[in-house]
């Protein structure tokens, strides 16, 4: 299967500060990759490089032809919720539709068909009743749903989610992951999370980002995986009896 994008020997950072070094990664259409790693390890930097928000210091990111449409990469992006100004005077429907802007001319309006597909997504995400509400009146979970609709409305080939489980209740979190599982049948997913345990039942592979990137096939949390994490981590497993494992490293 052809990769959607291939990252070769990528180094990226800010000013003199090299956050990522020698990163290689291939994302295939069926991938569901959990991006994990300590804060400051470069998870966000990796996303920004893929999204084209920062220019790599060295290395390349190559997008396949099927990843590009109309000069824009077919990436759906769900930013961290604290990047959003929830006081901004905008309705849910307008937030969702704004995901279609990349195919608009500067003065373009939304076609009936586009409005229809936005409404359809809103319905599917279960936020129809609040579609005309300003986002300032929504709960964290509802904002996430609206932002997920915005990320999906332009039919991306790759969905990137940055910490979607912050400020949301457990019920929404589970719903979200179930939804992602279904979506993964049609598109690739890159999910950034600090919560290794919860995502382990859903992701197909892991990318551990801590200055460099280690790729792990499979979703079992192995000692090797934890080693690349390089810090004490906490795992909460979702069995019949939830339990906590504290894994301590010396380094």
């Amino acid at each position, binding site marked *: 299967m052809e990769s959607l994008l291939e990252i070769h020997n990528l180094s990226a950072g800010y000013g003199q500060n090299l956050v990522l070094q020698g990163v290689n990664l291939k994302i295939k259409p069926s991938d569901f990759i959990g991006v994990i790693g300590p804060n400051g390890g470069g998870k966000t930097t990796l996303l920004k490089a893929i999204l084209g*928000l920062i220019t790599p210091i060295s290395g390349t990111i190559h997008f396949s032809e099927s990843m590009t449409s109309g000069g824009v990469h077919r990436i759906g992006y769900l930013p961290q919720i604290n990047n959003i100004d929830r006081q901004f005077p905008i309705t849910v429907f307008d937030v969702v539709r704004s995901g279609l802007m990349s195919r608009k001319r500067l003065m373009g309006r939304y076609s009936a068909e586009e409005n229809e597909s936005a409404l359809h997504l809103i319905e599917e995400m279960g936020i129809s009743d609040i579609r005309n509400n300003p986002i300032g009146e929504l709960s964290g979970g509802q904002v996430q749903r609206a932002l997920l609709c915005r990320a999906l409305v332009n039919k991306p080939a790759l969905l990137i989610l940055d910490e979607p489980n912050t400020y949301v209740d457990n019920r929404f979190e589970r719903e979200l992951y179930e939804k992602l599982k279904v979506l993964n049948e049609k598109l690739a997913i890159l999910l950034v999370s600090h919560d290794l345990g919860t995502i382990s039942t859903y992701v197909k592979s892991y990318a551990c980002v801590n200055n460099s990137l280690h790729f792990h096939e499979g979703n079992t949390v192995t000692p090797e995986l934890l080693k690349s994490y390089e810090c004490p981590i906490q795992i909460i497993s979702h069995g019949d009896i939830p339990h906590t494992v504290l894994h301590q490293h010396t380094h």
Partner: protein
Amino acid sequence: MQSLITLFDFEFFRNAILAAFMASITCGIIGTYIVSRRIVFISGGITHASFGGIGMGYYFGFNPILGAVIFGIFSALGIELFTKKADLREDSAIAMLWSLGMAVGVIFIFLTPGYAPNLMSYLFGNILTVSKQDLLYLLFLSLFIIGFFVAFYRIIIFVSFDEEFALTNNAPVKLFNALLISLVALTIVLNIRVVGIILVMSLLTIPQAIANLFTKRFDWMMILSIVFGFLGSILGLALSYIYDIPSGAAIIFTLVILYGVIKISGLVIEKSRQ
């Protein structure tokens, strides 16, 4: 009441009404943008920086408003570019520009021989002395802003709401940021004649605060801000006439009272419903 109506026989009064109307349009639309994007402090910086241009206008003998336009736009674009490139805190940069503009203005006005006429009207504005030329500028600006926001409404919201997301969609974020901040500068400078440097910020924020009590949608906020801005201006003008107090201050005072009354009555209605 009779005497208020006979006021319309005076050209200066009709001009004042026109000025209030166009100030409400320009400040209503641009103010909604400023408040939504949380760039009130930047706008304050631009306002005060433009005083430098006014001072230079006095000293070198050109129209002070032209000087203010140049200073306003350059400081606006300066803040926009500088804080993103240079390693300088945005609020510190704004404060620096804010006081630098005022300092330049004070120095040049001090150096200008003789008495600086109308200086007070630049600081506090005087809606009763706006000239035909001022009105013409305001008319052009009003029409341009209305046209700009109608034509580019979606992309303006797109870029303003989530700049990073807009960038990932290859939207012309930089271009629109620059265009919009220039419109902010122009709106501020042309309204200086109406309410003055000290007071123009309130015309860009109080009508929006009132509008925000009724709506949390960008389009309705613009429209209601224009309505409340105009209402406040007219009531303020009447107040200024009746009590013989400066018009700019009377307008702002009225707007704040209007906000207070609506806010409190809203709370009372809410209480009585419970």
